[in-house]
């Protein structure tokens, strides 16, 4: 069981992945294993990530924990890892089981939380806040065009919302490119057209917080339900301040922590489930104030 774990993230320039990195660190520390973390510049750098993955294999790690940017970009590297007998963990669940089967790649286990479900949880909460028979315009701020994570969250949200509260009309679903400023501008623009906006769902917390600033600067603070995804520390602060309504926390810290712990088990020959689902939770002001939710410990 000597040797390093290779951990390949998407990017670290994002609190979500930062928190996951911290989780990995803590997990490795408590399990007493060596590891090295690599990441690429952005969560769109698919080919670079493949190149980094190949390079990591040169260091002959004992296990690879990879958060693939999309369902295919790491495949050649993963099959190379399999050939040299390195177990692979799918961090954050970006790999498609069907494709893995087609490629003949067997992974040790999959760990993460479901982005589709996270989006749906956002819709649940919005419907709960506004009421199932509520009517009014809703804005969706997407991530970067073509980004899988963002797409899943947005799809989950809009599908569930249509089910739960058909009166809430999604009037626009626009790309914020993960950029706070762009999200703020989009919010401004849509407020012009729909001053009676009742809800905003953003595909991550950063954009949600940009939207918050626009809503407050536009004098509509408190009237619009704004929901982000991730559960960042600054989102938590904003919720505490009564600005952001809620964030669907994915507990990335916990994902990182459990990933390493379970790899250690795999290497020790123990059994682990194929899919370790880390729950998501909706962070709201009440929950934060109450502070009783056990999962809160893992919110970073």
């Amino acid at each position, binding site marked *: 069981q000597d040797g390093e774990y290779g951990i390949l993230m998407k990017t670290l320039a994002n609190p979500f992945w930062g928190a996951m990195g911290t989780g990995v660190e803590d997990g490795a520390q408590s399990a007493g294993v060596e590891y090295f973390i690599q990441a690429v510049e952005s969560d769109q750098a698919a080919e670079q990530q493949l190149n980094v993955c190949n390079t990591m294999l040169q260091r002959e790690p004992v296990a690879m924990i990879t958060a693939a940017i999309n369902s295919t970009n790491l495949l050649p590297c993963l099959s190379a890892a399999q050939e040299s007998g390195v177990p692979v963990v799918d961090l954050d669940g970006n790999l498609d089981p069907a494709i893995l089967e087609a490629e003949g790649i067997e992974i040790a286990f999959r760990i993460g939380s479901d982005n589709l479900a996270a989006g749906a949880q956002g819709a649940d909460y919005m419907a709960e806040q506004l009421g199932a028979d509520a009517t009014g315009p809703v804005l969706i701020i997407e991530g970067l*065009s073509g980004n899988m994570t963002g797409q899943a969250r947005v799809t989950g949200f809009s599908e569930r919302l249509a089910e739960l509260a058909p009166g809430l009309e999604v009037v626009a679903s626009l790309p914020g490119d*993960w950029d706070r400023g762009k999200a703020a501008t989009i919010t401004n623009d849509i407020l012009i*057209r729909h001053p009676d906006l009742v809800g905003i769902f953003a595909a991550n917390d950063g954009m949600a*917080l940009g939207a918050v*600033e626009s809503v407050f600067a536009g004098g509509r603070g408190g009237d619009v339900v704004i929901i982000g995804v991730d559960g960042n520390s600054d989102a938590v602060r904003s919720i505490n301040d009564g600005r952001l309504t809620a964030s669907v926390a994915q507990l990335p810290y916990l994902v990182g922590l459990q990933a390493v712990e379970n790899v250690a088990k795999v290497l020790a020959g123990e059994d682990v489930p194929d899919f370790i689902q880390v729950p998501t939770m909706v962070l709201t002001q009440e929950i934060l104030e109450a502070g009783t939710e056990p999962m809160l410990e893992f919110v970073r």
Partner: protein
Amino acid sequence: MMSIETANTKRAPAPVGLWRRAQAASQERLHLRLESLVVLVGLCVIMTVLSPFFLSVSNFLNILLATATIGVLAIAATFVISSGGLDLSLGSVMGLSGVVGAYVAVTLGAPAGFGVVGCLAAGAAAGFINGWLVTRAGVPAFIVTLGMLGLARGLALVISDGRVIYGLPAELVYLGQGRPFGIPMPVFILLATALACHYLLAYTRFGRYTLAIGDNETAVRTAGIKVERHRVILYTLSGGLAGLAGMLFMARINAGDPTAGLTYELTAITAAIIGGTNLFGGRGSILGTLVGALIMGVLQNGLNLLAVQSYYQQMAIGAVLILAVFIDQYQSRRETRV
């Protein structure tokens, strides 16, 4: 550059008296090409027809607000490009500045004024290093500023540990969200910056040397002007303006975001070029750049109001961009260029 006209250039149409005179006056007095204004107005008319929400004071303020950050960056780009240089680090330096400002004002807890100084100083310092490397070490501007792009972004991430620094003092937030007389502060700051910079580029010696260096560096050197020093000042100015943009962005979103400004340099350069700046130097106008930035702002705003779907937005922006510049420069292309 082209002293010889191509064989298939046609004769210019007979000048339409009034239009020609207005054009010449605008160019001569204001250093603004009237055509780009026409394109801007045309775009506004189209948007008004397409969307009932477009034509309103609040939407115009909204467009101006959305243009503020990019507008300031585009002004920075105009200075450097019209001198024959290039600054690819604008977006990163903007991100770095915001983080430094927020770090000073939040993490260190210094008074708001220091936050502003932090932004500007961080930007100017990065710009100074760019200028120094370009002129003294003689490394091409493309490489230097691309290197700075990586350096500044990395530094911003290191300082902020990859997280946003949230929760600025109220005075700072006012700079981004305040609305004296109902007009957003960033709009005031953008317009004031644009006017001051326009004066600087169009009417002062400094501006003349900037354009002349972009036109023929050797000629400027023979005139006894210190070209190297001038370039260093230009890059420093450009960095300082990126710092200002960083401050605006930070104040607007009430946080120092290490990933702010990603790929903004391209948009900024685009606005400058739409505004008539010559990518190879020698020509440039801040008012033109402002118009260019507004053209892009109106386009983006219109597409948002129309709720055009994201894939199609990218395509529409690309196509309209080409078309706008085509129309804008149609006439000057038909006439002889130098």
